[in-house]
């Protein structure tokens, strides 16, 4: 087995942006090295899952989306169509985010009975804010935010991406994303604890 010296983060945890190590791993995976695939999936699959899970609230759908993302990644890498050198992470999470957006679009067009079913599975944001535990309240508050705020929080915290990688993925300046992230956190704080947000502002 080919051994590549690189710094690999703990399984499922965001890395420290060691793009050279990741690129070497991706190159091995592209050569159909199964151990490289095991490592790549170990590194990123739970982060992709967390991203999907936070936006869709359904663990089964999140796993399906994660699978479809890695099927695409495998096909692209092994067929030689992968052209995003040094930007693997941005490329991977762009695929994931597009799948999540597609799913949201599709389900929003479904007839009423499916929407009702979804409502049963995912209580309203206000319900969570009033009655749930800390996690439920946080999820409810995130759901109350605009889509762009939800996306930046999901990419930064659920996917564990660096702002530089998010900027590459969304093709926006890092400064813009930092400001958007800061605003989203402020809104979230205000939703979860209006009193402390008012004190802080004064």
């Amino acid at each position, binding site marked *: 087995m080919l051994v590549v010296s690189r710094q690999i983060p703990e399984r*499922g*945890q965001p890395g420290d942006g060691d793009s050279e190590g990741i690129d070497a791993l991706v190159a091995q995976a592209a050569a159909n090295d*199964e151990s490289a*695939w*095991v490592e790549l*999936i*170990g590194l990123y*699959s*739970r*982060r992709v*899952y*967390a991203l999907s*899970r*936070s936006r869709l609230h359904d*663990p089964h759908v999140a*796993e399906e989306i*994660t*699978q479809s993302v*890695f*099927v695409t*990644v*495998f*096909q692209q890498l092994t067929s030689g169509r992968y052209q995003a050198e040094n930007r693997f992470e941005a490329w991977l999470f762009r695929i994931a985010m597009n799948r999540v957006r597609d799913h949201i679009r599709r389900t929003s067009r479904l007839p009423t009975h499916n929407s009702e079913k979804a409502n049963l599975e995912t209580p309203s944001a206000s319900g969570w804010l009033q009655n749930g535990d*800390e*996690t439920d309240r*946080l*999820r409810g508050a995130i759901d109350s935010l605009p889509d762009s705020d939800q996306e930046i*929080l999901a990419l930064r*915290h*659920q996917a*564990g991406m660096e702002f530089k990688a998010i900027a590459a993925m969304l093709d926006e300046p890092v400064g813009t994303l*930092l400001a958007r*992230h*800061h605003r989203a*956190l*402020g809104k*979230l*704080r205000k939703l*979860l604890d209006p009193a402390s947000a008012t004190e*802080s502002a004064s």
Partner: protein
Amino acid sequence: MNHNEEHHEIIDSLERLAERHRAEADDGFESRILDAATQPLPAHRHQRKTRSTAWIPFATAAAVGVFAYMWFPRSAIPVPGQEDDQVVAAATPDESSAADLWLVSIETMEELIAGSDDFGDSLEWIELQIDATESEFDSELDWYQIGESL
């Protein structure tokens, strides 16, 4: 993270939520993802690369349409809307009459106008003759004279 010091509690909450999501999937999660990613594609996906024959009925229908247009016998009577005809006037049928008047070409129009002039002239000439000879038909004698002359 300097720009978000004031939000450190929220950030901690978000990180805890992310940890919870990442840990939510069971131990076999990675194996399932690996199996799904590396399994060969179903055969039908490759078969779709073969040349499609779906175009044949459409092409056939288009060819039949073209030949029908080229070879279908045309009516000798000018019909409104046909090539080289210019509609200059049209009358829609009313309820009491089934007759349609279609003036379908410049030539037809001119013929009708010329014909109506001749007919009008003839009528005027006959009226003048009648007026001129009216006094001559006053007596039976005149009628006999006319009869003899015929």
